[in-house]
């Protein structure tokens, strides 16, 4: 068994994910409605940014194009994370119904099973909105293109997705304690996503520290965007900090791992 190759070990997950994807395509009309729905969510989020800039020219040191870039990067990362692990949100329902025990008897790790228990393809709607916004922002913004810029953007999207996935996982771990209070964790998953799409300069000091070091969503969009656009003026977001985004993702995953471990240790089973 020791020489079992990696691709062989990942096979069950591939099969699971493919089956989830196929299942969603079965009800074509319902699937299309869902996608249109997430497009709508993305557009509504964008409308908020757009309405503000209808009234002001600059918000938190960013003009519309810069704000669009921040909006696009955070939405892109959030919708990717939401697609892969957003369904960890359903955990309280599984816990209450005693269905977690059913996952435990299967020969795969719990977290891996839950993550592959769904692949929310309908989120491509919001993803599409984010991609369009990103394209428009990158084309219209005055960016000094170089290989480093491209690398930074790719790095940001990957790390940002990892950060949001970590937040969802941390929230999942805490659900084992909260159960009825499941909404507590929305404060930093959905709240984090809302904070990520703002210019961090709007926040007072303590809140900025929170979104940078505790739930590091400032790294998802704002800090990299400042570096990509070469914006001066924010002492707390020097351009080199943008390259620390993977570190923020590591930090987030360390916390997430801890929360998940504590949660599963605490879980006693549904009994019966």
């Amino acid at each position, binding site marked *: 068994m020791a020489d079992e190759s990696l691709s062989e070990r990942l096979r069950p997950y591939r099969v699971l994910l493919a089956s989830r994807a196929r299942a969603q395509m079965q009800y074509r*009309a*319902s699937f299309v*409605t*869902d996608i*249109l*729905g997430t497009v*709508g*969510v993305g*557009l*509504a989020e964008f*409308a*908020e940014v757009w*309405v*503000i800039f*209808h*009234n*002001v*020219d*600059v*918000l*938190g040191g960013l003009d519309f194009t810069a704000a669009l870039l921040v909006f696009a990067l955070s939405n892109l990362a959030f919708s990717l994370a939401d697609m892969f692990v957003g369904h960890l949100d359903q955990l309280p329902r599984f816990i209450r119904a005693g269905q977690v025990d059913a996952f435990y008897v299967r020969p795969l790790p719990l977290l891996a099973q839950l993550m592959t228990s769904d692949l929310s393809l309908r989120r491509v709607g919001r993803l599409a909105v984010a991609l369009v916004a990103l394209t428009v922002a990158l084309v219209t913004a005055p960016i000094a293109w170089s290989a480093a810029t491209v690398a930074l953007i790719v790095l940001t999207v990957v790390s940002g997705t990892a950060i949001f996935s970590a937040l969802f996982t941390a929230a999942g771990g805490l659900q084992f304690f*909260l*159960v*009825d*209070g*499941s*909404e*507590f964790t*929305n*404060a*930093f998953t*959905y*709240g984090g996503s*809302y*904070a990520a799409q*703002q*210019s961090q*300069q*709007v*926040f*007072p000091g303590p*809140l900025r520290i929170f979104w940078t070091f505790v739930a590091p969503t400032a790294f998802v969009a704002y800090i990299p965007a400042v570096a990509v656009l070469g914006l001066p003026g924010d002492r707390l977001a020097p351009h080199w900090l943008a390259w620390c985004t993977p570190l923020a993702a590591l930090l987030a995953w360390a916390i997430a791992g801890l929360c998940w471990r504590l949660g599963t240790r605490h879980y006693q089973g549904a009994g019966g």
Partner: protein
Amino acid sequence: MRTFWLLVRAGFRRHSTYRLALLAGVTTNSVFGFIRASVLLAALASAGSAIGGYDAPTALAFVWWGQALLGTVNLWGFAEVKDRVRTGDIAVDFLRPVDPQMAYLAGDLGRAGINLVGRGVPAILLGGLLFDLAWPPSALSWVAGAVSVVLAVVVAFAGNFVINLLAFWLVEIRGITLLWMITGGLLCGLYLPVPWFPTWLRTIANWSPFPSMLQNPIDILAGRVVGTDIASAVAVQVFWAVALLGLGQLVLRAGRRRLEVQGG
């Protein structure tokens, strides 16, 4: 009337069981309150003057009343009636000696009550403690604001009830629910005040029932709408409450004729 009141109390008690959920709601609403307050204050600072009649204290009041009333007014809708239509359980509701719409309205008012006490009051107190927000300028504003909140709950309920009843004709109403939630969320004045919208969007919002669900009570409580304007804000809400409840009755009757429940 006595039955109605009993049902309101039952709704209140039913939703007060989950106290931890109420506390969780307060926490999440407050986090969003902090973020949105920061954004609006930054926008006002950037504009250098009031925007759409909002200065810093009224904008803060807008944010925190919005977060406080979010749990009270059922903006995101409910699925109970839709599920009962689909399973056929709605037939049981028809057999009862109270009108189904009134029975569900009573339950929703009870739900709104506990959410106002357990979720709204702590959120607005926290907002008031940490920020310098505008309080209702007079006793009249408090009273009219309270009436306006009740009307907002009724309008939101009545609208959602009609949406739920569409399940009589459609197998899956998820798409319509989503559309209702997205347009409603944007136009009701939860994210940003309706007066900040560009003219065309503001016109659409003002012709829709959505501002009656949140923007109107907030404006009265924040003191942005005063004097005789209060009367017209409340009158618009009364119009939408009556219109949507009436529409609900028509749809309910049509659905009742169509309903066919199998089994014995």
